[in-house]
């Protein structure tokens, strides 16, 4: 009986090893942190619009539609890489694409959009990164999906790739 009891610590140890090993081999990115704002209402904000000569008021822009919000900047190389996918999203029926231009030079941003094409229906200027902090953004590009009730359903950190594009597209269909 006692010998049997003594095996318990070793079994315990083996289980812990297995758990660690499992976490090592599964496909996951430990530096990608789930958003604390998932399933919460978006933060209201006001800013200037990069595209139009008027204010950007979140209450007016985020209403009764599924919205993709993309934080981007011209100085961010991965933003340029994912731009082609943002453009694809702008062609999806029933999806509005809003940009938030993070700590950028507005003139450069407008030039950048003219050259690469503008997928955004409106763009808010976040000159000091305050909107980004309110949204829990820590590494642009970041992309959020907001449902028609203004609730954040998904957040992706980093550039959108072919793989994430497919995943996000499916999710948008589900939310719609």
């Amino acid at each position, binding site marked *: 009986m006692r010998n049997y009891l003594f095996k*318990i*610590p070793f079994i315990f140890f083996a289980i812990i090893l297995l758990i660690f090993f499992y976490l090592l081999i599964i496909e996951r990115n430990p*530096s990608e942190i789930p958003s*604390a704002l998932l399933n919460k209402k978006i933060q209201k904000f006001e800013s200037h619009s990069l595209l139009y000569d008027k204010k950007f008021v979140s209450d007016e822009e985020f209403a009764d539609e599924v919205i993709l919000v993309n934080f981007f900047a011209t100085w961010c190389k991965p933003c340029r890489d994912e731009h082609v996918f943002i453009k694809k999203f702008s062609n999806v029926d029933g999806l509005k694409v809003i940009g938030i231009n993070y*700590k950028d030079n507005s003139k450069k941003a407008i030039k950048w959009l003219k050259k690469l094409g503008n997928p955004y229906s409106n763009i808010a200027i976040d000159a000091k990164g305050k909107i980004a902090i*309110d949204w829990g953004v820590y590494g642009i590009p970041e992309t959020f999906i907001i449902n028609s009730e203004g609730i954040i359903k998904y957040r992706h950190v980093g550039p959108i790739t072919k793989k994430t594009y497919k995943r996000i597209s499916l999710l948008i269909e589900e939310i719609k």
Partner: protein
Amino acid sequence: MLKEKILIIIILFLIQLSLGSSGSVEPDEFLENNEQELRARNISKHIRCMVCQNQSIDDSDSPLAKDLRVLIRNKIKKGKNDDEIYKFLSDRYGDFILLKPPLKFSTLALWFLPFIFLGVGVFFIFIHNKKFNNF
């Protein structure tokens, strides 16, 4: 000779350790009120830099860390207390931004498993010794 050299290296290393980090706070960020500045430094030391992830924002040179240091100082100036500032940040970035995880139901295992393992270990050593003495 070699021994002396090694000794000097060890002493220098210890001095460097004891000095600790002076942080990455830039001069333009400092608050005029010393007490408030100390509070800001203390909070910054407990907030994780989300970019570097294993550094506090007090130690980090990343632009986001600087933004958050300035934000903390602005909130202190507006009269917010420490708990309100921690809550503001964890509401947006999650508990992950707190370098010390809060004690709540979902973190019970994190806080108490080490003590349980210690207890189990002591228990087995105790039984083992008892058995050994019986021989």
